[in-house]
C-alpha cells in the first residue's frame, strides 16, 4: 500500500520531468539549425536537394507534429536513425550501454561502500583524530574532478605499477570477471570519488544528528545494545540524506562518463554522445540524452521507493 503510494507520487513528479526533458532535447535540432542534408550533401548543395532530403526525414512538418511522432517512437524504444550512416540509433546506443552501465554501476557500488565505511567510521568517533583525518581525506577527494582522478589512476596503476590496462574494455561474457574488472575498475574508481565524498559527508552528518535524537535514549533505556541501536535505529534514520544524495548525484555520474570514457578509451554511450555531437548527428545525440534521462529517472524512482521504505515519516508531504 505505502510502496504503491510512494511509487504513484514519484511517477507523478517524474512524468513532467520526462516530458520537459524530451521536449528540450528535441528542440535542440530546431535550435541548432543542423540538417541531415548538410551532412549528406556537403556545403554546396542546392536548396532543392536540401528540401528534398529534409522532407525525406520528415523535417518539413510542423514542429509539434515532429515532436509527437518522435516522442511516441521513443516510448516504443525507437530512437530513430543516424543522419551520418543511417544506422539504428537504439542499436548503436545498446552497443555502448554495456560498458557505460558496467562502469556506472561499479562506481556507484564502490562509492556507496567506501562512502559508507568512511562516513560511519567518522560518525561513530566524532571529534577524534580519525574523524578529522577522514573529513580531510573526503575534502581532498571531493575537489578532484573525475578526469584528474582518472589521470592519477592511470599514472599509478597503468604507467607506474603496470598492474592494470590503461584503457579498453572486455565484456563480462567474453573475458570473465577478472578481465572485465581489470578494465572497468579504474574508470569506475575515477567516477566513484565524487560519490564517496558525498555519501561519506552526508552519512556522517546524518548519523551524528540521528545520534542526538531522543529515540536513541529511548532505545538505550529499553536496554538495547549499542550495535542494535546503530543498525536498527540510528542508521535507518541517518541514511536518508545520503540516499537522497545518491539520487541527486546519479545524473553527474552519468554525465561524467563522457570524460572517463575518453580517458580510458571506452566505447560507451558518453563517447558516442561526444562523437555524435561533434559530427552534428542530431538524432544520435537526442537518443543518448533520452536514454540518460530515462536512466536518471528510473534510478531516482528506485531511490524514492527505498527512501519511502526506510524513513516513512520523513517522506510525508514531500
Amino acid at each position, binding site marked *: 500500500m505505502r510502496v504503491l503510494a510512494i511509487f504513484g507520487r514519484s511517477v507523478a513528479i517524474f512524468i513532467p520531468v520526462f516530458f520537459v526533458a524530451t521536449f528540450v532535447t528535441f528542440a535542440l535540432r530546431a535550435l541548432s539549425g543542423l540538417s541531415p542534408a548538410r551532412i549528406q550533401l556537403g556545403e554546396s548543395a542546392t536548396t532543392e536537394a536540401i528540401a528534398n532530403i529534409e522532407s525525406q526525414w520528415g523535417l518539413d512538418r510542423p514542429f509539434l507534429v515532429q515532436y509527437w511522432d518522435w516522442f511516441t517512437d521513443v516510448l516504443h524504444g525507437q530512437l530513430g536513425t543516424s543522419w551520418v550512416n543511417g544506422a539504428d540509433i537504439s542499436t548503436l546506443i545498446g552497443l555502448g550501454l554495456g560498458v557505460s552501465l558496467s562502469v556506472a554501476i561499479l562506481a556507484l557500488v564502490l562509492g556507496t561502500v567506501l562512502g559508507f565505511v568512511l562516513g560511519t567510521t567518522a560518525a561513530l568517533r566524532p571529534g577524534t583524530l580519525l574523524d578529522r583525518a577522514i573529513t580531510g581525506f573526503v575534502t581532498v577527494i571531493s575537489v578532484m574532478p573525475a578526469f584528474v582522478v582518472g589521470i592519477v589512476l592511470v599514472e599509478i596503476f597503468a604507467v607506474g605499477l603496470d598492474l592494470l590496462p590503461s584503457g579498453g574494455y572486455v565484456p563480462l561474457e567474453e573475458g570473465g570477471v577478472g578481465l572485465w574488472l581489470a578494465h572497468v575498475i579504474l574508470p569506475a574508481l575515477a567516477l566513484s570519488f565524487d560519490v564517496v565524498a558525498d555519501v561519506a559527508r552526508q552519512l556522517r552528518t546524518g548519523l551524528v544528528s540521528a545520534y542526538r535524537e531522543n529515540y536513541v535514549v529511548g532505545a*538505550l533505556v529499553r*536496554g538495547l545494545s549499542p550495535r542494535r541501536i546503530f543498525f536498527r535505529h540510528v542508521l535507518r534514520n541517518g541514511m536518508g540524506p545520503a540516499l537522497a544524495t545518491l539520487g541527486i548525484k546519479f545524473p553527474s555520474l552519468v554525465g561524467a562518463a563522457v570524460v572517463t570514457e575518453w580517458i580510458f578509451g571506452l566505447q560507451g554511450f558518453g563517447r558516442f554522445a561526444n562523437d555524435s555531437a561533434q559530427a552534428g548527428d542530431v538524432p544520435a545525440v537526442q537518443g543518448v540524452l533520452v536514454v540518460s534521462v530515462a536512466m536518471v529517472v528510473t534510478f531516482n524512482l528506485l531511490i524514492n521507493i527505498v527512501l519511502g521504505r526506510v524513513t516513512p515519516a520523513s517522506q510525508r508531504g514531500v
Partner: protein
Amino acid sequence: MTTLAKSTLTGTDPTETGPTESPETGAAATTAEPVLAVRDVRIRSQVDDREIVKGVSFELTPGKVVGIVGESGSGKTLTCRAVLGILPPHFEVSAGTIHVAGEDVATLEPRQLTAMRGSTISAVFQDPASYLNPSIQVGPQIAEVIRVKKGAKRREARRRAVELLAAVHLRDPELVYTQYTYELSGGMLQRVLIAAAIAADPRVLIADEATTALDVTVQAEILDLLADLRDNAGLALVVVSHDLAVVAQLCDEVLVMREGEVVEQGPTEQVLYHPRHDYTRLLISEHEQYGLEKFLTREQS
C-alpha cells in the same frame, strides 16, 4: 534477598492477561531490600567544572513511589539519567553511589549496564513521540524489546507486544501495533512508551515528566495507569515532575529540588501539609493560587 525479590517480580505478569511463567510468590512489597538506592549523588559538568546536582539520596522498595519535584534546571532529569547510566557527554557522577537491585552502577561494564536497562530499570519521558523511532511502526519496537531482552520468538514477541498495548488500555491494540508515531496522539504515544518500557518486566520505572505535555484528563489516565502498574506488578516508581499535584497523587516520599540541592525530603503528607522550607511553601502556595483554585472554580461552575 535480592534474587528472591527478583524472582517474585519477574514472575508477576504486568499485563495480567498473559500466562505467568513462574508461580507467584507473595507480595513483592514485603521485601525490605531497596531495588534502587541513591546515596549522596553529586553530578558535575566537565565543561565548566560546575556541580549541577549537589547530593541526592533516596531509597526505593518494590511497590513504592518516590517523587522528585522542582523547576526545570533543578537537576531532576540529570539525577534520573545518572541512575540509568546515560548521563549526557561531559557530565559525570563525581561522588556518591547508585545501587540498582543491589549492584553498584558505577562498577558495571557497559554490557552489564545494557543488560540492566530495560529488564531491571526503565524509563519514560516527556514528549513520547520523540523517544520512539519515527521510521518503524510502534508495535515492532515493543516486540523488539521482548525479543532482545526475553529471548522470545518473533510471533510470540508480537503476541505479547499486542497484549502489552491492551494492558496499557489502548483501544484496538492490533491497529496501534502497525501505526507510526505520527499517526498517534500524545496520550496514546505515552501509553505506547510505557508499554515499551515495561516490556521486559523491569522492577523500577522512572517517569520523567511523563504527563507534562498532556492535557488534564489524559494526564489523570496516565497517572492511573502508573498506579495500576505499581499495585499489580509491584513496580517501584520514580516520578519526576514540576507539578506538585502529580506527585501528591502517586508518591509515598517526595524530594523537593532547587538548583541541584534537595531542599526538603520526606513522606508526601508531611512535605505537602507541613512544609519546612520556604521554597516548598512557595511551590505549594503557587499551586493553590494558580492550579487548584482555578481547577476548583471551573468544577463548580
